[in-house]
């Protein structure tokens, strides 16, 4: 029988979580605000596109994914007050004007024959970018102090991976000719160029390059 009075370490030997993390409260909140803004624009785009895609399977998938991203926006919205931002609208904003330009370009296709362009924007550009940014946030922030953000990001990433796979499969089934391949590649390049100009979905340093020195102190 174990001895209940025996002192044990607060962290079990296999629990390797450490302090500090790379993000300050402000930096984590700023990022969470940009995520919320982007998730909102994303679920709105998917919702808007539902009526414009003739492919029944794509229509239904967009309807389903629309809610996934709305839920992500809600998770981020709920996290903001815990990060000292009581007015959650204040931080719910794009990382920079380049990000606004990227989202405007992403949302542009409307015609029923442009399903490939719509899906490439979401599944070959935006979702991979989100997966990268959320993964970086998970890895960079303190797994102790910013654990609630991490937990939410974990749920979100699970959706992102599954949604990305589903979207990629839809795309592969829609791309039928070398011309389609060309279309998809061209669209991807256009949007990648724009998101590159924004420095990633959370602006310059989305994947850490600028943040390490500034945010390392705790």
């Amino acid at each position, binding site marked *: 029988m174990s001895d209940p009075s025996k002192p044990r370490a607060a962290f079990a030997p296999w629990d390797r979580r450490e302090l500090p993390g790379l993000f300050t409260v402000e930096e984590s909140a700023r990022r969470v605000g940009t995520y919320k803004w982007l998730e909102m624009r994303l679920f709105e785009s998917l919702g808007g596109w*539902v009526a414009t895609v003739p492919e029944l399977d794509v229509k239904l998938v967009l*309807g389903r994914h629309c809610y996934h*991203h709305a839920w992500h926006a*809600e998770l981020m919205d709920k996290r903001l007050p815990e990060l000292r931002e009581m007015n959650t609208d204040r931080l719910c904003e794009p990382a920079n004007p380049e990000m606004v330009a990227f989202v405007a370009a992403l949302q542009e296709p409307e015609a029923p024959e442009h399903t490939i362009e719509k899906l490439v924007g979401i599944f070959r550009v935006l979702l991979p970018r989100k997966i990268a940014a959320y993964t970086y946030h998970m890895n960079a922030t303190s797994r102790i102090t910013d654990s609630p953000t991490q937990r939410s990001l974990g749920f979100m990433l699970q959706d992102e991976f599954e949604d990305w796979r589903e979207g990629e499969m839809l795309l592969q089934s829609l791309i039928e000719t070398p011309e389609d391949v060309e279309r998809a590649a061209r669209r991807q390049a256009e949007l990648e160029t724009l998101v590159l100009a924004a420095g990633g979905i959370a602006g310059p340093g989305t994947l850490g390059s600028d943040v390490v020195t500034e945010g390392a102190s705790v």
Partner: protein
Amino acid sequence: MRKQLPPEMLARDSRFVRTSIMDQVMDPRNAKMGERELGSARLQPERPAAADRARNLMHGIFTGEIQALEGAGRTTFDFDDDEAPFALKLDMARQCWDESRHVEISVKLGDWMGTEIGEYSEATFLYEAACAPDPILRLCGVNRALEGLAIDVFNTMREFGDLSGDPVLEFCEDWMLADEVTHVKMGSDWLRRLTADDPERRERALDFQRTVDKLFSLGGFRGESEENPIQLARTFRSMAGFSTDEIDELAEIAAQAQEDARAMVAGGS
């Protein structure tokens, strides 16, 4: 992509055919039908042509679900953050997922009942109600009026499934009914919240709802008598937040629509 997508731009594959309103209105059989003693129009297994009537209604549900999905989707997109609150958009996104599942269920039910996608022509009335420029009008027209109608339709179909001993139909309709009750409630809650300080806007929205309700009671399609194919589902409607007065008013609208239809037939023949 533009804000406000008109109904004629709803994207469909080659299987779908849009109902021609002119063909419907100008159909010379309409007046002749009024002269017939066709008995109860209530959808029941023992009534003539029950299988084809049920299939027809099922396909109508299917296209209605597609348009409900599209309408909810457009409401997430068409309005800026200051026009539609964040939480309202979240509700609409949630409804998108629900309606997406309803389309899936309807496709499976169509398979089960022996219809094919696009077998019947599609009318876009439902989506048209989702094109109102004020989000609260949309919520009244779609969530309260049309989702309310969906409650009546699903309940009718559920009863049809029960009476015919069809386990699949009854099961599916019961699940869809559960979602629709939530959607109607969403509409009622938002109406209250957004118009608490704006009685004029509230009245405009309720007026729009009455117009849509009347449209969908047209010709006695929905009501409480044996003559109505779709029966008003009082219990589920009250679960969805309709007051008894509101349900009574709707019953009156339905009865009036039926009277109008009768008068039209009498006048035309």
